[in-house]
């Protein structure tokens, strides 16, 4: 492997192992690194120093947008575009539109949450060096990985390898870009 590797990859056998190792990597000051786990390990985000997800902002924007859109649609169709007297009632009233607005708000909030998740995770992204590694099969089964990227300013092949081995990482290898 002549080219610059993507990073170093290490395997951990247990969730507790990767959890404690993550704290060490965080404390060593690395920024561009990741844990690969088959399920969401409780508290691992805090151990890694990952910030709270921004998905709620997307969902809120979607929910408010959907609600307003439904109210706006009923207002436009009933009070502007085609005025029709139904049962002598006002052309537009927000009360009977409420069910439609709530449901459209729910729909758009859900779409917002899913779109937000995809945007923040960078999905769909069908190629990634980690996916090319033969360890990904076991990492989505019962093993845990830590990947430290070469682009990290603190990355140094020898030192980073030493750190990963010290904190319990097994089979530390270079990951092809």
């Amino acid at each position, binding site marked *: 492997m002549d080219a610059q590797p993507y990073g170093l990859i290490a395997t951990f056998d247990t969730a507790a192992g990767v959890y404690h190792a993550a704290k060490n990597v965080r404390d060593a000051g690395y920024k561009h690194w990741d844990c690969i786990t088959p*399920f*969401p390990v*409780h508290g691992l985000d805090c151990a890694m120093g990952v910030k709270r997800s921004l998905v709620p902002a997307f969902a809120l924007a979607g929910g408010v947008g959907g609600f307003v859109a439904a109210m706006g649609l009923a207002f436009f169709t009933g009070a502007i575009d085609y005025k029709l007297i139904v049962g002598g009632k006002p052309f537009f009233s927000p009360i009977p539109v409420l069910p439609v607005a709530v*449901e459209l708000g729910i729909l758009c909030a859900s779409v917002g949450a899913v779109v937000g998740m995809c945007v923040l995770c960078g999905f769909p992204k*069908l190629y990634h060096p980690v996916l090319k590694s033969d360890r990904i099969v076991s990492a989505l089964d019962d093993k845990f990985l830590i990947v430290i990227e070469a682009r990290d300013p603190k990355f140094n092949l020898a030192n980073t390898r030493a750190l990963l081995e010290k904190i319990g990482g097994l089979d530390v290898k270079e990951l092809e870009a």
Partner: protein
Amino acid sequence: MSHVETTDATQAILAEVNPAVKPRPVLVENNRSHAWITERVCGIIEGKTPLWWWVCFAVACGVTSCSVIGFGYLVAAGVGVWGHASPVNWAWDIINFVFWVGIAHAGTLISAILCLTRQNWRTSINRTAEAMTIFSVACAGLFPALHVGRVWLAVLPGYLFPAPNANGIWPNFRSALEWDVFAVSTYGSVSVLFWYVGLIPDLGTLRDRFFKKGDKIRSAIYGFFALGWRGSARHWVNHEMAYLLLAGIGTLMVVSVCSIVSFDFATSLIPGWHTTIFPPYFVCGAIFSGFATVMTLLLPMRSILKFEDFITPYHIDCLCKITLVMGTLVGYAYLMEFVIAWYGANPNEGFTFVNRTFGLYNWAYWIMFSCNVITPQFFWFKKVRSNFALIFILTIFINIGMWFERFVIIVTSLARDFLPSSWGYYSPSIVEILTFFGTFGVFAVLFLLFIRFLPVIPMAEVKTVTPEADVHGTQHS
């Protein structure tokens, strides 16, 4: 998580009070490893298609053909082929619609409300329950779309969904039926999203397993839908947040959709429909029938697919208890309707309820009452809750009862409205009966495809409730 400080004082109090220690129920039995879970769930998809699957699939397709023929005949000949006649112009079409929508609700309740309330036992059953939701909504959606007779109008823009059209008119937003359009389409869409978001990590697992086995085509198909999932902890944070938000939104949705379905009736002036109890009553009924159906599906699936370690007696016990609560609430609603009819002192309302109980349709009322009020009471007994064959039979009775509930509400009120001169008696035609029967086939076909091609147990979620996943050493002590 309990981060209670254990000071000397608390220790002393605990020593004196001596509280009972109740161990947490084990959610995956026999202390199965994560690798075992993956192997067990993926093995079904990766293995050869078993004979029983083909037999069931063939039967389900046969049953589906009844619906296809029934609907085809309806579209060709018009709604006159159904038994509808004035004054009963709504019958099996809307009964079946409410019946299937109701069943759908348990899936959302399990995935949404039980997720918010941190009921960890939901993990091994939520995928199946959500699949049931989606397929039930699909069956439900068939009926309102087709009962309009000129079916093509239902899909043209501007009739159901507001869109600019040649006539320049818009749907009436004051109509409960227009609310239904939004409610049911939102319900279907959000259920699919919820299901799909939960599936993404498991699809990633399947993608890599197929790749390792050299099955590039299947790997590519699962990989396409896995969106490039790689189990990154930074992705899990967003995934968990999106899932939690969908659970919160789903909770709002599960109570709003069935309420809106009940508005179809409650906003009219027909005696027996025009009541404020309808929204909560419909929600309870929906959850009641849905939980019964979840058990009807899970009990055979558990033994056929050998999922005894995932779906433990504890899971079934929990499901029975919720069914009992919901069934009792439904029974309360039945009685409360009578109280309100009497207390409201409206002669038409009072007559409707006496007529339901003792009139021409009293057989339907008593089928409903005995199936829905008496059947769930058996779940008070631990012996019943642990006898799976008996539970299976009871859940079938509950679903029969819940279908009859909708029949009683819709048909008895319409057949005996304000004017005695326009009273009538409704009987279904063979076309309606076959069409409804066929929708069970539609459901079964979809469900069989689901258990063949998708991970039935959410692997990633189940792994989180095993003792191995506990990194803090507190949860499973």
